[in-house]
């Protein structure tokens, strides 16, 4: 077996272990709830029987570790439990399966994040690489100044600025991104333009700065100087000598920023009232709907871990020292 496979498997296992601990943390959040939270959810009028039934449904009569394995086993099969909302003191249960709440919204969020990513990743890479190549030029300085300012802005400030100009003063785009399952693709894109633009602005700024730093670091390597002294043209120096060594740092930058996108999406969805998973989570936090919060947190954390894992693996498979061991 190629030793690189071993390294990758090791990394994957590490990712799995991390995921296990993360799920453990997310699961144990329930343990910190006050003992009478079932009463609080069902309302003061709840009878002892309904409370007991609810507690039994949650498995509170079982020890924690058994509940964890029940929970994680169900999650693995796509069952995220039932929402706390819709319960009533009388015992009538109108609660919905968390999966049914999450699934359509997850699609929406991925659509929005994807839209932002498709624009921002290439844009940021081009800006970052050119800024690094023309370092300290007027272009570099201005791009730097603009991005330093943009990353200092809270997402909602950018969002409302865009709304103010493009939805209110000059109404070309809608300020509410109210899509649903029936919305046509074109219409969906149109409605998502402002939220996607907000995300793009934030991500591009971060990503461009990180790309620039990574490339500058790379260009300072002695082997780059050596390739110049071999008489290679600038294009060849970049293509042949810089690029093959740039995959790992660039992958890290992209993964880091896509992970950032995942978080940025929460605020942006709230501003534009976009029916995504971030919006759902914020609502669930407000109503203290633990199963939904847990599901959302698990989804966000998994995405985050997967992104970083991908970057690591790209770094491993493009590393000549690992590809061609002694």
């Amino acid at each position, binding site marked *: 077996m190629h030793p690189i496979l071993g390294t990758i498997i090791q990394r994957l296992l590490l990712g799995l272990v991390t995921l296990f601990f993360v799920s453990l943390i997310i699961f144990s959040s329930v343990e910190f709830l006050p003992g009478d939270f079932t009463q609080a959810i069902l309302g003061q009028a709840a009878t002892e029987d309904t409370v007991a039934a609810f507690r039994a449904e949650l498995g509170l009569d079982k020890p924690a570790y058994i509940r964890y394995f029940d929970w994680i086993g169900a999650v693995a099969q796509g069952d995220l439990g039932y929402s706390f909302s819709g319960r009533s003191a009388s015992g009538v249960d109108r609660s919905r399966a968390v999966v049914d709440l999450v699934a359509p919204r997850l699609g929406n969020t991925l659509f929005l994040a994807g839209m932002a990513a498709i624009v921002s990743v290439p844009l940021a890479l081009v800006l970052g690489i050119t800024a690094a190549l023309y370092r300290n030029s007027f272009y570099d300085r201005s791009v730097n100044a603009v991005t330093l300012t943009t990353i200092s802005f809270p997402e909602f400030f950018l969002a409302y600025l865009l709304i103010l100009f493009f939805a209110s003063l000059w109404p070309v785009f809608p300020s509410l991104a109210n899509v649903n399952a029936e919305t046509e693709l074109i219409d969906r894109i149109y409605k998502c333009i402002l939220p996607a633009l907000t995300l793009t602005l934030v991500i591009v700024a971060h990503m461009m700065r990180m790309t620039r730093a990574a490339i500058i670091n790379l260009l300072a390597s*002695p082997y780059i100087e*050596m390739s110049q002294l*071999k*008489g290679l043209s600038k294009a060849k120096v970049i293509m042949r000598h810089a690029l093959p060594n740039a995959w790992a740092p660039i992958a890290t930058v992209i993964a880091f920023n896509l992970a950032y996108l995942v978080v940025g999406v929460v605020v942006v969805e709230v501003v534009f009232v976009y029916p995504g998973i971030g919006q759902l989570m914020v609502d669930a936090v407000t109503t203290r709907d633990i199963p939904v919060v847990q599901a959302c947190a698990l989804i966000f954390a998994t995405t985050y871990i997967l992104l970083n894992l991908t970057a690591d693996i790209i770094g491993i498979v493009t590393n000549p020292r690992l590809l*061609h061991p*002694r």
Partner: protein
Amino acid sequence: MSTKHGKKGDILLEMKDIRIDGFSDERWHKIIKGIDLTLHRGEVMGLIGESGAGKSTLGLASMGFTKPGCKITSGSVVFDGKDLVTASEDEKRSLWGTRIAYVAQSAAASFNPAHRLLNQTVEASLNQNLQSRDLAEADARDLYKQLQLPEPENIGDRYPHQVSGGQLQRMMTAMAMSPRPDLIIFDEPTTALDVTTQVEVLVAMRSIVEKFNTAALYITHDLAVVAQMADVIKVLRYGKEVEEADTRKMLKSPKEEYTKSLWSVRALEKAEAPSDDIILSINNVDAAYNGSLKVLHDVNIKIPRGRTVAVVGESGSGKSTTARVITGLLPPMVGNVEFNDGALPAELKDRTKDQLQRIQMIYQSADTAMNPRQTIAEIIGRPLEFYHGLSGLQKQERILELLKMIELDESFYDRFPSELSGGQKQRVCIARALAADPEIIICDEVTSALDQIVQEGILKLLLNLQKEYNITYLFITHDIAVVNAISDEIVVMYQGAVIEQGLKSEIMSPPHPEYTQLLLNSVPEMDPDWLTKLVKSR
């Protein structure tokens, strides 16, 4: 294939009144202050100087290249009739790599980790379409063979991290030679190598440069090395030329005081004095890091009081590990260290303040041995306070006394290390060791980061201090010249074991054990024929 554009003896490179500025600390500094240089076809010129002399900058400038943050402000660099200062980037690029090639100090960093060595070797030739890939690769394999690289047919298929440092350095020479340039710039190509490796690389480089009659600029700080490689030597200092002469003439009768002083450290020699009064002995020590691979095997060393024992060896010989065992940083697996007839506790934390005070240490790099945020007074004052309880005026006066002992004036009292030169920093480290009032000082390569003249000053200071205060030194070094200058006894170490220990005169005269022989043979001498003789004697 003929890339020779003229015959031997013609002027190939002519630099006139070249001046280069570098930007640092928010302003421009003069690095090269007007240097003329003439190099003929097939001639090898040695550029020699200490750090800050501007020799590397000048070497790169001969290609019309400056590092980022540097610029050529005036003068001309005429290579084969073309001024590279005014030439366009395209014109320069057409010369670089094909007619002028560069060999860098750090081969490991200068090869692209992502490409096979063969591809990098022939890259410059192919870039200018000098020959077909097949021919170029066949030629490269031939060069590998001439440079005595192992498996010349296949070694090019490896990646840079898959070959050793000495091989990589020869590989870079092959890369430079591949397009048969008229001129090669060697920028300290053997500085990072061990002496026994260095010899092999020097032999390989010299023979191939001679064979193809290539002109070269050989940049180094090591006189003995340049004596083997160069026809002409140019001495530089502070960005100016000190003098230039034929190698033999320069070695025999240097004109300038500065040049003579470069020679003098080699002449330093301590008269050995035998002694049986052992102050510290290392007995049957085995040691390993983290319980893994053993790095010391049954090491026995005896150090007589008031004398200097030099521990010689190449990297990986275990000489620094021995120091760590003595100081208690690395407790031995087996064996012990006796000090003044009593066994020292193996662990640092079990030693008394008194024991700690009597054994002091000086490091190779004074830069990292001093806290950059403390003043010199704080650095020297701490042991005074810690071991001897001095404070206030008493402490201040003792600090000033110590400064005098290391030949620095009192204006250094409140300076920070960053305001000192390399030699001054090392002196402060000596003062810190002295402040403890030690019986033995372990000196770990204390002169190897310093320029020759500064080395001499430090060695003389150490000798004087020994005479005056009867201090014992354990002197770890890889430099035979330094061993001559300072030691009474010598310990030769190789791969974690002691090869031999004895008086300097005994160790230095034959018969030698095999490794000692190799080590002594590998140390370049000032004789320009040394390398030639060595090759012949094989």
